[in-house]
């Protein structure tokens, strides 16, 4: 055996911990990606949806006759057609119970409107025609007879006794009332506290605006009775099961395929009304049916994010020790709970507010309401950024009110590393983290001490400079099973099969690094399969920053199983006893000898028909199911400096420093990219993104002419550093990083804005801190 052929040259370059470039970039940058709309299915018809133009009303009738007789029209479907074909209700996402034990009141929601329309954009009918232009023309000819009802868009207004009611089955518009914690204990702590800081927050609604609009193509094979649905998603396995359930078909009769996805942020994770409609149309027409959202339509049909009004209160003793924390308020889930979700306004407020601080007790009491607005789904962080925003604004405000240095106040209350594992007031058990050290490093890297000089320089130019600190901690998704499949293919490649899904994160490189490190297979030979439901035995999908924990560890465990099998086969091939065979850096070796066989060579021998005894495994392939990793607690410290122009109210982010504890970094470059993206998204919500509805429920910020997404020029240069405390709760020691940027950015940016305005007597500004809002605040209005 030639030792040279064993390992492979330059393996260290692809090891865990290296900044391996994303393998998909050359493909995507050349325009060779395969997004859903890029697929060309011969004979496909085109669907266009007819949507309500009023926010609330009784659906008196839908006249489709004119549309049906238009050129090229193949079908016009309404809710009645779906019901006739056995399509059921869309999923009900809220599984929480009310304090009295009764279940949440998820309204019944069919894919197309029945009885009433409930938001501008509510799909009422779908037109299918030979071309997209024909479908559009015919969609215009569908007339909807609606008796308009008063609308309610604001979550607090939805709670008013005389508020318009959306559903008979959702009295008071309340989907669920949620309580956590020892309310009486918290009340007692507040009653005897030396100081209470209280702030009311509007957590502004944002439009997700993924670069790639949603798109789907349905087809049906009458011969085997199987459907195929090609669409952007966050994981095909769960989506297949959910869509199949809505369709009333066995899951194995649906194949769900996802190719490249251009961003999702949570938005593409739910079963939207369009998908069952397309499947029904494909079965009825016997040809593929395709649909791609248009941008203006996306503003009305994709779930939005955030949208809550919360009051947060912190009780402190005379020295500034935190005694208790309370959050009360209301979250908006939009018009229904198929896309609308409760987690950001309920359990994720609990898990993500108390943060890095020793705080003995906390209580949360919130309501989740329906309104006549686009449903509000999970959006990058889904409660994590909000919770951290509430807490870090409270801490800064408490420091100012009590005359304590904000850094000293944080240090006084931080959980210390020697106290790990720490059970927080949220009930979450933090496994690791060095919060004091992270804070120190952030202060140093951001030149915290140099702020005063920079502030003076800004003042000389007539500008108000502010500095904002935010130390965040978030809980990533709870454990759920994930697949780690490893296949040695006939062409000499190694396929990794897993059920998370990349929609911009760069999974192929990161997962390849895990496998290459654990198994010694050449990185270049590794292929990632993630978007084919037929190839998965389980799959949790991407969400809650879980992919590195779920798929990373699944692949690492699968690699160990491959090695177990390999040792047995290698022992036979090397004519040695199993106990004498060791595995090291890609090769099976007879201990103490130079007899060895590389793993790729062993796979090749198996393919070539190595004649194995019956009791040995026939391949090295593994379909492993990882039981799941507990939530991790990524944390870090953001320091932001802004300049405010008092004449115009314009805010510019000038400096940005972040020090993150994401545990072990599989690929530092990808992680830093996630931090950058999350921070810029946070800056967008904090300063620019203003989703304005009028009182009738029309979305005024309904296009990019009015809805301001941050551009590159709006983002500062971000100084990133890693200060890892490896997670003790999963084998790889990784922590989630996908949402953390938002969690630190909202409070850091807003603390900086308020700090800039503090000299003018300002105590709080709500997001988004647009020029108009800042100017008004300074003008005292």
């Amino acid at each position, binding site marked *: 055996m030639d030792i040279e052929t064993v390992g492979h040259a330059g393996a260290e370059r692809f090891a865990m911990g290296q900044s391996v470039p994303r393998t998909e970039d050359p493909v995507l940058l050349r325009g060779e990606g395969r997004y859903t709309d890029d697929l060309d299915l011969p004979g496909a018809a085109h669907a266009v949806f007819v949507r309500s133009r009023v926010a609330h009303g009784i659906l008196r009738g839908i006249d489709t006759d004119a549309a049906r007789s238009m050129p090229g029209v193949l079908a016009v479907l309404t809710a009645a057609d779906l019901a006739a074909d056995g399509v059921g209700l869309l999923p009900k996402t809220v599984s929480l119970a009310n304090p009295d034990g009764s279940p949440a009141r998820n309204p019944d929601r069919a894919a197309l409107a029945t009885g009433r329309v409930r938001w501008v954009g509510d799909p009422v009918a779908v037109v299918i025609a030979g071309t997209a232009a024909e479908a559009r023309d015919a969609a215009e000819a569908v007339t909807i007879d609606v008796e308009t009802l008063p609308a309610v868009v604001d979550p607090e207004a939805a709670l008013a006794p005389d508020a318009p009611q959306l559903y008979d089955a959702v009295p008071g518009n309340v989907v669920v009332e949620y309580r956590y914690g020892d309310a009486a204990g918290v009340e007692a702590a507040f009653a005897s506290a030396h100081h209470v800081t209280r702030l009311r927050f509007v957590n502004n609604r944002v439009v997700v605006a993924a670069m790639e609009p949603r798109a789907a193509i349905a087809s049906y094979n009458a011969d085997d009775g199987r459907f195929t649905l090609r669409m952007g998603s966050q994981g095909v396995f769960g989506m297949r099961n959910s869509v199949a359930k809505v369709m009333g078909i066995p899951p194995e009769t649906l194949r769900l395929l996802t190719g490249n996805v251009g961003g999702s942020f949570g938005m593409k994770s739910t079963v939207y009304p369009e998908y069952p409609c397309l499947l029904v149309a494909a079965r009825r027409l016997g040809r593929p049916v395709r649909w791609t959202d248009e941008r203006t339509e996306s503003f009305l049909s994709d779930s939005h994010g955030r949208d809550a009004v919360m009051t947060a209160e912190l009780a402190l003793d005379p020295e500034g020790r935190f005694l208790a924390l309370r959050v009360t308020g209301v979250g908006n889930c939009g018009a229904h709970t198929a896309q609308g979700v409760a987690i950001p306004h309920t359990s994720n407020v609990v898990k993500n507010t108390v943060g890095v601080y020793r705080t003995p007790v906390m209580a949360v009491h919130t309501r989740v309401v329906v309104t006549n607005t686009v449903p509000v789904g999970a959006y990058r962080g889904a409660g994590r950024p909000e919770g951290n925003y509430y807490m870090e604004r409270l801490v800064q405000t408490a420091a100012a009110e009590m005359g304590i240095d904000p850094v000293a106040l944080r240090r006084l209350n931080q959980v210390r590393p020697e106290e790990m594992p720490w059970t927080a007031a949220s009930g979450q058990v933090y496994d690791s983290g060095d919060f004091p050290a992270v804070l120190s490093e952030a202060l140093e890297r951001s030149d915290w001490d140099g702020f005063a000089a920079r502030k003076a320089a800004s003042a000389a130019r007539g500008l108000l400079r502010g500095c904002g600190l935010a130390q965040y901690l978030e809980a990533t998704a709870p454990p759920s099973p994930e697949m780690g499949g490893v296949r040695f293919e006939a062409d000499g490649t190694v396929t990794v099969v897993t059920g998370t899904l990349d929609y911009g994160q760069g999974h192929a490189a990161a997962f390849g690094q895990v496998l290459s490190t654990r198994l010694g297979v050449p990185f270049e030979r590794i292929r990632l399969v993630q978007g084919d439901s037929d190839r998965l035995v389980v799959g949790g999908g991407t969400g809650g920053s879980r992919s590195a924990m779920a798929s990373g560890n699944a692949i690492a465990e699968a690699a160990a199983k491959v090695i177990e099998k390999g040792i047995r086969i290698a022992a036979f091939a090397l004519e040695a006893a199993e106990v004498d065979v060791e595995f090291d850096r890609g090769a099976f070796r007879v201990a103490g000898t130079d007899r060895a066989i590389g793993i790729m060579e062993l796979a090749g021998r198996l393919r070539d028909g190595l004649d194995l005894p019956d009791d040995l495994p026939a391949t090295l392939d593994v379909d492993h199911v990882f039981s799941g990793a507990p939530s991790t607690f990524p944390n870090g410290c953001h320091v932001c400096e802004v300049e405010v122009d008092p004449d115009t109210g314009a805010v510019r982010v000038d400096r940005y420093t972040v020090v993150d504890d994401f545990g072990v970094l599989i690929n530092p470059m990808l992680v830093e990219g996630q931090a950058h993206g999350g921070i810029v998204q946070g800056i967008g919500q904090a300063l620019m993104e203003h989703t304005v509805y009028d009182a009738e429920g029309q979305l*005024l*910020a309904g296009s990019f002419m009015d809805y301001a997404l941050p551009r590159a020029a709006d983002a500062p240069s971000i100084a990133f550093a890693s200060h890892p405390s490896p997670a003790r709760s999963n084998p790889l020691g990784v922590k989630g990083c996908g949402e953390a940027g938002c969690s630190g950015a909202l409070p850091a940016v807003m603390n900086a804005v308020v700090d800039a305005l503090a000299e003018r007597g300002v105590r709080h500004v709500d997001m988004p801190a647009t020029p108009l809002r800042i100017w008004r605040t300074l003008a005292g209005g």
Partner: protein
Amino acid sequence: MYSFDYHKPASLSDAAALLGKAEEGKLMAGGQTLIPTLKQRLARPTDLIDLGAIAELKGIKEEGGALVIGAMARHADVAASDVVKRMIPGLADLADNIGDAQVRNRGTIGGSIANSDPAADYPSAIVALNATVHTVKRTIAADAFFTGMFETALEEGEIITAIRFPRAEKAAYAKFRNPASRYAVVGAFVARTGGSVRVAITGAAPSVFRWTEAEAALSANWSAAAIDGLSVKADGLNADIHASADYRANLVKVMTKRAVLAAG
């Protein structure tokens, strides 16, 4: 978009003839406003007459001491033009800050002023610099050209051929951008020619207007401080989700001062 017939004539006379024949003809310059309107099905022309191949509408030149810009000059052309930079640098600067690079590479000066968007930048320059708008049949003075929101003195089918700007001693534009669209929330163009000062404000009201109090104050004292004592009434100013009328009134002052500072 509804279907229409597309034409690309090579001369002004052919364009006029096509327009005359069409049931409902529409001129197209850079298409930056027109195409989105068509895509949203807000207009339904039978014929689209693309002005892009007409040589007579192109070019930027100095003529008799004035700057003459062809109607089809794109914003990027104006921004990069040595003639413009030499004669009225503030105008090149204005063009360089319209929208984004894609918009500047298609949008034209003729299309912009024909459209008379209340938030467009060029109208302020036309008025402050006291330019004349040349059309196929006449010349129109700046003060008479913009008649209201999306309204101009142009008659049905009247094609703008060029805009003639007298040279100014000092001229500059200051704009507060809409963070989403980058149009002007408020833009102020100030120009001094001989003893005369003109101040034109865009974005603030339904149409571009001259701020005569500022003109008087700056004629007496050409400095940003001259604006300090003035006040702008919010009555009649635009209000939208980005800016209330009183905020716009504030920006009129702030941007005018900044324009004076920039003009030097």
